[in-house]
């Protein structure tokens, strides 16, 4: 039976564990930093020499670590894109703007074990020649910001941060920057704009790839809280050991936020791909099943912007057969391993690792109206398709859920959503469009029926036709 594998959250919930540095040090804190700083240079079999920093970067690449913020991009590759010859400072920014509905993993770290993040950041900064780093924390997490500032001053006092860290000559300063309550600040270039004191309008790429033209037009790394914590463990264990966790191409552990209609909602750290969606929902070690008498209706598998999966859906996953050849394996929804690649092959994504479970008591039209209202509210409004489309969809759904529906509204909504995805400056366009595209396509009958019912009611004079 699958169980949690707590690496990052190993101590967080241990009785008596506190977020101060003494407690962290008693639990082996900052040992990984000492290890990283003592990394010797090495010569590769082909004769190429690697500096200690390059060794750490190489370890992170070889660990297979994929970003835990949502896109699941290789952290090591992301680091490798950094322009190290620009002559400009390199910045590292920790994205602690955790805002995706359904996601509550980073705050466990920030609130319970902030030094782990600080240590991961110091190692990552050292490995990338960063002298100035920022933690961009969501404005709604004032307590987390206080704890981080406390942790940073403790680390400074102990010589882990500031000038000449642990006598190595490495200088680093980390500042906490609090957001002001906008979801778009979690988009890395929007975050950078916000950090620069501007409106969080995501930047166009090209040319503004953060690795080249990021914060203050300098090379910048933006990593998620959980990703930076993983770096600490990669250094502690070594890339090879870390890569043994999880499944091929989906290595390590990740924290899953499970919410919705399950008996035991909460966060669970698992080896990536070692538990299925079904296990996460039904296993007593995780969600503990649906509420009594309820049937599964749908799963939003990776934060509210990921495409919904419908109960009973089957997918064809590409898997390596016994003979090493790739074969297609038909897989039930509940048998989908919870990893990056399987969910992608199922047409959705594991995103921020947030699973939202919906049982048969849920109305898909109402649920989508709620989600769309969120995305309309959070669209920054910079580019046309998202600015106009997000509110258009939300208004359509508001009408459909308040007596003004039409049979054609399902198609109407699809039409709007299709004109958003792929046409915007940032991935928010997808975030706003995908719930609509997936809900309406997979539960089309619900949407058509709702609209037709309103049409009938209006025809019979039961509800006024105030919308037309």
């Amino acid at each position, binding site marked *: 039976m699958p169980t949690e594998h707590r690496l990052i959250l190993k101590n967080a919930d241990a009785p008596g564990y506190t977020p101060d540095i003494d407690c962290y040090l008693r639990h082996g804190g900052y040992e990984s930093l000492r290890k990283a700083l003592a990394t010797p240079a090495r010569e590769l079999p082909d004769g190429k020499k690697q500096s200690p920093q390059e060794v750490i970067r190489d370890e992170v690449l070889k660990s297979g670590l994929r970003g835990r913020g949502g896109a699941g991009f290789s952290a090591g590759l992301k680091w490798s894109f950094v322009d190290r010859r620009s002559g400009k400072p390199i910045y590292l920014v920790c994205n602690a703007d955790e805002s995706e509905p359904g996601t509550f993993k980073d705050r466990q770290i920030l609130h319970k074990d902030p030094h782990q993040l600080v240590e991961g950041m110091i190692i990552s900064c050292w490995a990338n020649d960063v002298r100035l780093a920022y933690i961009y924390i969501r404005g709604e997490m004032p307590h987390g910001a206080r704890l981080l500032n406390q942790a940073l001053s403790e680390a400074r006092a102990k010589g882990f941060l500031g000038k000449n860290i642990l006598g190595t000559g490495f200088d680093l300063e980390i500042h906490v920057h609090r957001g002001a309550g906008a979801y778009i600040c979690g988009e890395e270039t929007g975050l950078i704009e916000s950090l620069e004191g501007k409106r969080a309008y995501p930047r*166009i790429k090209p040319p503004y790839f953060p690795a080249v033209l990021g914060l203050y037009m300098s090379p910048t790394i933006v990593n998620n809280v959980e990703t930076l914590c993983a770096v600490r463990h990669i250094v502690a264990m070594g890339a090879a050991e870390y890569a043994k966790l999880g499944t091929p191409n989906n290595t390590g552990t990740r924290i899953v936020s499970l919410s919705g209609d399950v008996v035991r909602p909460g966060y669970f750290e698992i080896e990536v791909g070692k538990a299925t969606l079904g296990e996460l929902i039904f296993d007593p070690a995780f969600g503990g099943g649906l509420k009594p008498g309820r049937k599964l209706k749908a799963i939003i598998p990776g934060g509210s912007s990921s495409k919904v999966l419908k109960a009973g859906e089957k997918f064809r996953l590409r898997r390596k057969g016994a003979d090493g050849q790739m074969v297609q394996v038909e897989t039930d929804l509940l048998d989908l391993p919870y990893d990056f690649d399987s969910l992608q092959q199922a047409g959705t994504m594991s995103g921020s690792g947030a699973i939202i479970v919906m049982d048969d008591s849920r109305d898909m039209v109402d649920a989508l109206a709620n989600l769309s209202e969120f995305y309309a509210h*959070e669209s920054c409004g910079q580019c046309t398709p998202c600015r*106009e489309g997000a509110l*258009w969809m939300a208004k359509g759904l508001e009408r459909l859920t308040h007596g003004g529906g039409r049979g054609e509204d399902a198609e109407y909504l699809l039409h709007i959503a299709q*004109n958003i995805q792929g*046409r915007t400056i940032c991935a928010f366009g997808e975030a706003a469009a995908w719930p609509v595209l997936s809900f309406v396509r997979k539960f089309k009958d619900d949407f058509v029926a709702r609209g037709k019912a309103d049409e009938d009611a209006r025809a019979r004079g039961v509800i006024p036709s105030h*919308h*037309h």
Partner: protein
Amino acid sequence: MPEPVASSHPITIDPTMSNAVTNAPAAPPPVEKVRVKVDGREIEVPKTMPDWQGKMQPTTMLQACKIAGVEVPHYCYHHKLPVAGNCRMCLVEFSTPMMDPATRKPVLNEDGSPKMARSVLPYEPQTPRGAIACATPISPGMEIHAASPATKQMREAVLESLLINHPLDCPICDQAGECKLQEYSVQHGQAASRFVEPKVHKPKAVDLGPRIMLDDERCILCTRCVRFTRDVAGDDALGIVNRGSYNTIASAPGRSFDNNYTLNTVDLCPVGALTSKDFRFKMRVWFLKETPSVCTSCATGCSVTVGSREGIVHRYEPRENDAVNGPWMCDSGRLNYRWIHRPDRLGKVLLRGAESDWTSAIAELAALLGSAPKGSVAFVASSRQTTEELWLVSRIARKLGALTDTVAREGEPDRLLVSADKNPNSQGARLTGVSFTEAGVTIPEIARGIDEGRIRTLVVLGEDVTKAGISSETLARVGNLVVSDILPNATTAAAHVLLPGCAHVEKRGTFINGKGRIQRFGKAIEPRGDARAEWEWLQELAVALGAVEPSRSIEGLFNRMASDVPALAGVEWARLGDLGVTVPV
């Protein structure tokens, strides 16, 4: 941060060129070329091209399409503003040569042509993906599908989105007729909207500043105005407040949008959101006759377009000229046209107070000047007059051995376009010899000559000399005071011969700006009353005095002048074009 625009359109004079007259920038060094296809047609384009500041950057799809003669519709992109990429109107489908990931060589079709991969959404490979042409660099072998069904669908969708919350109040909108929403609706729009929801309502008639009114409901949030005032005018005055579909352009709290370049945002605004308080509700733009002209408010000489209808000037707009003003002009110059229609404009030929006519006046002048003893005549001309007129003055003065000068007019310059020299043609006066380098230095000598009785006849053109070093008392001693002007003043009141003059929009001619750019301007409206272009009567007088050979047109007069004035050697009217040429000054 971006450089201010002033430094980005330098006057292009190549010191290595032996020819005195330069029209085009120096021949650029050989450029690396890239072959791309636009709508199936292969073209070669430079690998890099100037960005909004003139810095060389990788050539964009939009620039490549322009070279191919294919227009990519756009709202937020402007070639003299930093790229924003927000309107998404320029999304185009494209293909790139397929690469073998192992060999990193192009994959070839059976006929040897490169196999192309069409741009698709990574998560939905059956759906085409567009790239914004304004910000996406081209790559070798790329094909841009600027007219494909997918590209057209993307444009239609963007346009539909832009219109759902737009008030569609074209009948009462000042922008109607020169509105990009209208233009692109004709080309890419749909007949009916699917939108059945209530529209977003936003502030109307927002008083942004002394010259600008904003209708937020018409705004498409392209941020051209924001970028212009921040990155070109250097005044970070505008921004966006609120979020999503409720986004609203606003000036900073408690601040008025009042720099001297605000009206450029009205030109830049592709829709009817930003309107000029001076022009709004005055005239439908399609009735305006457009005449290429030059602003007369300072020695910068911004190229302008005069919009007039039935003898009335309604507006000036900057006309793009990289050798002078780029696409911009200052507000004070733009609004300096009202005097043209002042009711007290001089409109009659007066001889000693009595109404007369041009024939009599010129005959009397010819007789007067023809018989004047050498040195008894002096001219005070104006650097607001055309180069041709100033040249005629200089020819007549030379014939008569007369002193000449013009009146200096100094003020505050700025870092963008406004010059300290408030005369539009000081260089014309210098190059024709009417004034010395320092204008006005001869005026005290003229005044002394009058006071001492040596100068008996004073010809004043377009200046009130009582404010320029010749007092009313001195003026009263002049035996024959000949004055040509447009508006009444103390000098015109004292004139023995008064000739009504023309505003520059009422005649043709040239001005030479502070940096030696010689530009011609056209006639937008007819002169008032009996007023005649000064060059016409000056030429008649000069011919009568034997100072010049007659020319039948302004073209001929200009060319005759150019062959006489050393600095203008080789310049011909026909070569001036709409943008002018630069002469050494």
